[in-house]
């Protein structure tokens, strides 16, 4: 595969870092500060998007910066999979910035400079992770992401928020430690931490027990993906302002976890090794458990954001499930679900936030008849929700379809059932919200209107995009195909 050197990936990370610095400098002038946020977001997306043609040509973009530790450089490499994630994160940052402006200004939140600064830092690290060429670079950004999202989680600074923040840190820093251990172990055994499509651990004479241990520590290390026993930081983190939940806890942070896990499974362990050791199947059933149980948990929560959080936990495991099927179809489904879920879930969170801003309501049971006052919001919500359930023609359908094919390909019928049952569960926990909102009579006269335009427009757009992605999935599919081709040789 052809490799080109370009400053693109470095610039993409740098833009938001510079943006963050400027946000700090202009912290006293809200308009300038937020313009900087928007401009940085647009430039960043432009830079990331400008790499599409090269990657679609089958090229790989590389940028090697200096060596932080001997033989361990900060190095970026943009392949199709990384580009996909980079595109999602940087594209949605633009929407979220608009949305946050609306949200933060309407609620007159404090410490907005800190908010926008940390947001920009978090985005830099998300993009850094997307473009990392080796585990070492990935780890650096992984830890920066943990630290920079902490002030966002505890933004409201109440006692609850602080303890949620502690939980968040405890989980993610512990994850970081496990990840660090695994990285050092990989480096020790192989002498490299570079991602390679076939994996780098195979054929290095590593004892099988060590491989199992490594896999476990790696998966604990990607606790940002909120697998089931390590998930409880995510619902707690819902105490953050909604834009944060929307972008970070539906897209950036958790997707970073999933992205890391995928990178590790496919590019460090490699398909062959995963099959040989039987780790793939074990992992598949492990995440299948998460899919079902998290959906059941979602049913029990009346708080809309909490319900969405459990839905996220469940949906994230879809991605891993698809990937560990290790067939072209499964991997395609998994990778595509990163994209699809991102748009659908951000729509849902945007709606939840809009409801909070407009009506102050967070509980589902209080949302009777809300669609009469906020029709556009609730239509967007419905689009996202039926996409989540995997109904055509929404985006969610495509990825689920590929995963179903994958489960048949590897002849694991239980997994097929898991996918189907979870679809039902999805319906079960989203349907009441929609029914309540559209068909139930409000308890009393409702006086509020739609949320401000700054918030409304982004959520409508993301809703529409998740519909569009379902109808014309060719472009993202093309990118995913390139990634899958490099991994499996087939489509």
């Amino acid at each position: 595969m052809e490799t080109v050197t370009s400053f693109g990936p470095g610039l993409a990370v740098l833009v938001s870092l510079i943006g963050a610095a400027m946000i700090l400098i202009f912290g006293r002038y809200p308009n300038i500060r937020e313009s900087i946020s928007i401009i940085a977001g647009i430039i960043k997306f432009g830079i990331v998007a400008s790499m599409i043609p090269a990657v679609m040509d089958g090229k790989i973009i590389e940028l090697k910066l200096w060596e932080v530790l001997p033989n361990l450089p900060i190095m970026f490499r943009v392949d199709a999979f990384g580009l996909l994630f980079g595109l999602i994160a940087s594209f949605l940052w633009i929407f979220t910035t608009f949305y946050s402006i609306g949200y933060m200004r309407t609620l007159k939140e404090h410490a907005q400079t800190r908010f926008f600064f940390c947001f920009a830092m978090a985005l830099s690290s998300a993009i850094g992770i997307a473009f990392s060429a080796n585990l070492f670079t990935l780890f650096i950004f992984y830890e920066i992401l943990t630290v920079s999202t902490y002030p966002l989680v505890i933004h409201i600074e109440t006692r609850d928020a602080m303890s949620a923040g502690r939980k968040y840190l405890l989980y993610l820093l512990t994850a970081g430690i496990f990840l660090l251990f695994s990285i050092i172990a990989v480096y020790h055994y192989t002498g490299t931490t570079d991602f390679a499509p076939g994996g780098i651990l195979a054929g290095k004479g590593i004892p099988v027990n060590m491989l199992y241990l490594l896999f476990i520590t790696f998966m604990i290390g990607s606790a940002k993906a909120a697998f089931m026993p390590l998930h409880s930081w995510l619902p707690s983190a819902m105490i953050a302002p909604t834009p944060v939940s929307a972008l970070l806890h539906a897209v950036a942070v958790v997707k970073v976890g999933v992205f890391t896990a995928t990178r590790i499974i496919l590019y460090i362990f490699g398909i062959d090794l995963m099959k040989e050791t039987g780790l793939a199947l074990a992992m598949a059933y492990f995440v299948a458990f998460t899919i079902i149980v998290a959906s059941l948990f979602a049913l029990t929560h009346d708080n809309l954001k909490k319900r969405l959080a459990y839905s996220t936990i469940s949906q994230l495991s879809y991605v891993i499930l698809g990937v560990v099927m290790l067939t072209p179809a499964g991997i395609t489904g998994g990778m595509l679900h990163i994209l699809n879920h991102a748009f659908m879930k951000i729509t849902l969170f945007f709606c939840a936030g809009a409801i909070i801003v407009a009506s102050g309501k967070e509980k589902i049971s209080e949302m009777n008849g809300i669609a009469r006052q906020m029709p556009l919001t609730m239509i967007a919500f419905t689009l996202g929700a039926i996409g989540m359930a995997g109904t055509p023609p929404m985006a969610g359908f495509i990825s689920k379809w590929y995963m179903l094919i994958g489960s048949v390909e590897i002849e694991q019928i239980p997994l097929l059932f898991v996918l189907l049952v979870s679809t039902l569960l999805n319906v079960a926990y989203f349907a009441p919200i929609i029914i309540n909102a559209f068909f139930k009579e409000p308890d009393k006269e409702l006086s509020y209107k739609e949320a401000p335009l700054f918030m409304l427009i982004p959520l409508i757009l993301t809703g529409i995009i998740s519909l569009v992605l379902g109808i014309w999935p060719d472009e993202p599919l093309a990118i995913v195909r390139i990634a899958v081709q490099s991994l499996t040789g087939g489509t």
Partner: protein
Amino acid sequence: MITDHLSVLIIAVGLLGAFFTPIIGLIRKEMCSLWASFIILLQFLISIFLLYQVIIAGNISYWLGGWEPPWGIEYAVDLLNAFVLVIVAGICFSVSIYGRKSLGFEVPDKELPLYTLYILLTTGMLGIVVTGDIFNLYVFLEIGSLAAYALIAMGGRHSLTASFNYMIMGTVSASFILLGIGYLYVMTGTLNMADISALLPSLYGRPVILVAIALLVVGLSIKTALFPLHTWLPDAYTHAPSAVSAVLSGTFTKVGIYALIRVMFTVISPSYVIETVPVMSILSWVAAIGILAGSLLAIAQYDIKRMLAYSSVSQIGYIFLGIGMANKLAMTGGILHILSHSLMKVGLFMVAGAIIYRTGIRNIYQLKGMGKKMPYTMAAFVIGALSMIGIPPTIGFASKFYLAWGALGAGEWVFVVVILLSSLLTAVYFWRIFENAFFGVHEDIKKDEAPISMLLPILAFAVITVLLGLLASLPIGIIEQWVTGVLP
């Protein structure tokens, strides 16, 4: 050429500077701190030159008075010396700038003796590092120690007892070292380090050498506050003036560790202390316990300086752990941690001093709103603390990476767990401060930043912590070269 005499000049400048300080102080008191900064700046520049020379041209050996060793005293500079010299002189210089305001506030009207002792402290430590004669090392150790006792005693009522206890412990330590030196001398008949190491191999296995090693290890462990011999350190660091705590935490303990490395790995050969007698593995186990104990004790503290002091106990454990495992990677990590811990801890102590200077608050639960009151200072604190926890891209991460890698490579699973677990403990005790200083206060607090002469060194340390974290391969290159030359 004057460049041939650099290794002696670094000491001579200091001693002369110290002797002249009272005269300058008698003319104008205010000049003392400037004079001290100037002298130490000279020493810092010389140390940089020395490092440069060693990298370019190899080891330097200087014969004092022209007497060929072992008859006379030799100053021998290799990569390790030069590296530690730069750290020590650099820190002493920055803290001397910082101390102008801080010491002026905490110890008013005593500039003259204070800065004389400060220069002597610096010179004593530099002397320990630069000398190649084992008895000369003892003499400089005592110069530094006496100055340290006096400086610690300046912190007021409680610091007197802290200083007294430190003096008792310090004297025990120095006497052990002196006795160990005596044993080595009695068995070999020489005091020059290189000469001793040439004569020792025929004596290995003799009980006297074992006793000498035991005495030297225990003596130096007291000086470096290795757990459980750390008991003098928390009181001393808590009650000493902040600038003194900063400089001692960053340099004196590190110099002790340097002396230990020098004695164990170049005077006595590494193969003996690693394989024949398990000194090193005993040290590493003690260090591992110390890491955990120090962290846990730090969690229990509420006085910010005492917390930092216990954190030092824990971090010194890291250095010992790296040295104790005595494989190339861990040793590199350990020596790198000398640098990283100095940078972080000095920065943190300076921040603590700046907070005390502005508000007088020492209790970490009273730091509410400090992030708004002193934003730059607290930002530096965050960077230093993150580096302590080992978050990349800071220098603390680089050394922890090497330590963990070394432990993993040696198959020492317990140490891997200890190193990684204590990161978490470190996070626990620093995060309390973050929570208190940055969050939970909504009203506007007037910005009241530390004065510029205090702020500049603080920020410089924060910036260097990150910069070196990004460019960690530079120091690692130097250290690795030295370690490769020493370890078989």
